[in-house]
């Protein structure tokens, strides 16, 4: 178990990178505490897998250092970093039994058989695979194979970090949910540092204590799931997290008051003066249908069972609202109200309104 520090990490797949656009990872500085559950979240190609491979040692960074507990491990190969990794597709040693699969990382390090037996039994019990221990691993279903892959990652108790690279990709939704909770439970029990890479916001937010949101090789925001949901630092985070994502409305700023389509919109607080492209950000969860407010025309209503998503158009901007109970019909005119303490202003994409300080 270790604290992980990424120090001025940069990586380019090109031999001779010129501008910042040639870098798959632009400067990354990070500190991860021992025993935490972290997620790297972002769309395909955002650099999250590159970062993961650098931490595991499968890839050498072009610049910068990786420290485990203050010790520089940048030059060490994967097997000397004392880490474990679970891949997108289950990696199983086909010819071995489930038991031998789980024992493999221990036996490779010369752990004595008695200790191997007790660790394997413990992990198998946690993963609820005890009755499969004697079967050949090649005969398992995909979700059980992935469980065994996870088990191999967790069987060593001396690892610095366990990394998960989109481990639930091949798992059916109803089992995905089970494996996700299993993983969460395991983390709560073994308290080893875990890093989880995914493009799926639900997986990232439910698993991690702290989520790192990445875009185009850069970290956009680091925060707890609640922080990312409630106060996205960038419109990208607002859009990427949440389903549907945050409404982003073009705005004009006059003094400290924001205007959308000519109407003043109350923000969470004051705004530091400045120039730039201004946008109002409000989550669909905090938009309500009211007697008065912003007039809009209903374009589409989706009944999602637990609640409905009403998509309305004001001017030429689409605004989504999550509504419980009665919903308006398509084409009707509604009035939208924004919860002021959840209404933020963004300047050139980055948050510009300040919570609490009155305008």
């Amino acid at each position, binding site marked *: 178990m270790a604290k992980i520090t990424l120090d001025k990490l940069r990586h380019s797949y090109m031999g001779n990178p010129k501008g910042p656009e040639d870098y798959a990872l632009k400067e990354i500085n990070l500190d991860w505490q021992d025993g935490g559950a972290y997620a790297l979240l972002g*769309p395909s190609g955002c650099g999250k897998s590159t970062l993961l491979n650098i931490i595991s040692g499968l890839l050498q960074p072009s610049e910068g250092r990786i420290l485990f507990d203050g010790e520089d491990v940048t030059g060490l190969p994967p097997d000397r970093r004392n880490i474990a990794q679970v891949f997108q597709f289950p990696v199983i040693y086909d010819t071995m039994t489930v038991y031998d699969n789980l024992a493999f990382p221990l036996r490779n390090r010369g752990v004595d058989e008695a200790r191997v037996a007790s660790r394997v039994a413990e992990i198998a019990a946690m993963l609820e695979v005890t009755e499969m221990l004697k079967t050949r691993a090649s005969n398992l279903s995909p979700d059980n194979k992935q469980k065994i892959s996870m088990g191999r990652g967790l069987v060593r108790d001396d690892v610095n970090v366990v990394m998960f690279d989109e481990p639930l990709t091949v798992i*059916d939704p109803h089992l995905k*949910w089970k494996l996700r*909770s299993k993983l969460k*439970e395991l983390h709560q029990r073994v308290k080893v540092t875990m890093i989880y890479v995914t493009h799926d*916001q639900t997986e990232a937010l439910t698993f991690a204590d702290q989520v790192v949101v990445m875009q185009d090789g850069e970290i956009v925001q680091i925060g707890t799931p609640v922080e990312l*949901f409630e106060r996205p630092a960038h419109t990208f985070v607002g859009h990427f997290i949440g389903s549907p994502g945050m409404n982003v409305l073009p705005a004009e700023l006059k003094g400290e008051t924001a205007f959308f389509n000519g109407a003043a919109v109350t923000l969470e607080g004051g705004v530091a003066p400045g120039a730039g492209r201004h946008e109002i950000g409000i989550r669909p969860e905090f938009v309500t249908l009211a007697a008065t407010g912003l007039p809009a025309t209903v374009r589409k209503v989706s009944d999602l069972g637990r609640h409905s998503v009403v998509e309305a158009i004001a001017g030429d901007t689409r605004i989504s609202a999550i509504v419980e109970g009665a919903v308006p019909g398509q084409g009707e005119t509604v009035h939208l109200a924004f919860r002021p303490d959840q209404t933020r202003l963004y300047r050139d994409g980055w948050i510009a309104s300040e919570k609490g300080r009155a305008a």
Partner: protein
Amino acid sequence: MALELQAITKRVGQVTHIKETTLVLEPGRFNVLLGETGSGKTSLIKAMAGLDRVASGRILMDGKDVTGMSPQKRNISLVHQFFVNYPHMTVFDNIASPLRVAGLAKSEIQGRVEAAADVLQLRPMLHRRPHELSGGQQQRTALARAIAKESTAVFLDEPLANLDYKLREELRDQLPDLFAGRGAVVVYATSEPAEALMLGGRTALMQDGRVTQFGPTAEIFRNPNTLTSAKVFSDPPINSAPVTKKGDRMELGHGVGWALTGAAAGLKDGAYTVAIRPNYISPVRTDRAHVPMTGTVQITELSGSESTAHFRMGAETWVSLAPGVHPYRVGEDREFFMDPAQCFYFAPDGAFVA
């Protein structure tokens, strides 16, 4: 203009993949097949598309028997989970390929391909090859091919499964509009209940090669006909437990019981199964009628906007899903409140009773 399955079954060797199924799928709205992997969705699609032979029963398209007809003659399109495009052809040629096979005039092909490309925002990419496209664009190309072909039936077999989460959301939002007004029967297979709800239309729930329920999506979500249907159409999984009815009360054990109202009050005394979705079990009491249940918190998940808690009460694990942030501590005993008005009751054989 409908696709009708009349008592079809499908077998491979000794294994029955599709048990006797009768369905009428209509154009205009999405027809969603919802079920876990291995529940028979792909099997059913292959049978409908004519890729596999049915063991018995008939398939009618627009009232015409197509049971033994090859897929080439059925005028259908199939979009697969994996991005299937011809790698050596440009996007234009990929979209045009079925039209060229059909022997359409050059100008007609040009027009149809461009119209389909416009709908799917592929205009700027028409002269690229598939490997130069992102996953989303590749799948759009496959969809454009289906649209340009103007098929009578379009089968979409988990077409978004291999796309990024946000991309999936975007494309899913556009899909119903893409096919609206084209007169094609659209069949969409998915394993995600949320996806079925977002697509709307009608949904057929599948389990073990059988359609357990078929009807307007939101309606069958709220009115499951069996315990199996309720389980298939719930994510996170629906809570279920044995209960006993005595007089006008339902007893769950562990001192938890509630007074029955409505249809449930009219049930005969005896053993039933109760099922309730996690979002109707809340850590806060919002109504006096809600039933308190005390359990030990085992797993907690916080997704920013919602809090999930798994808690154990006796031998059963229950799941609560509530909007907002609720600080749970693992291992603590705490009260949750269940809304009895949202309970489904099932007879011992699994049939819905109230």
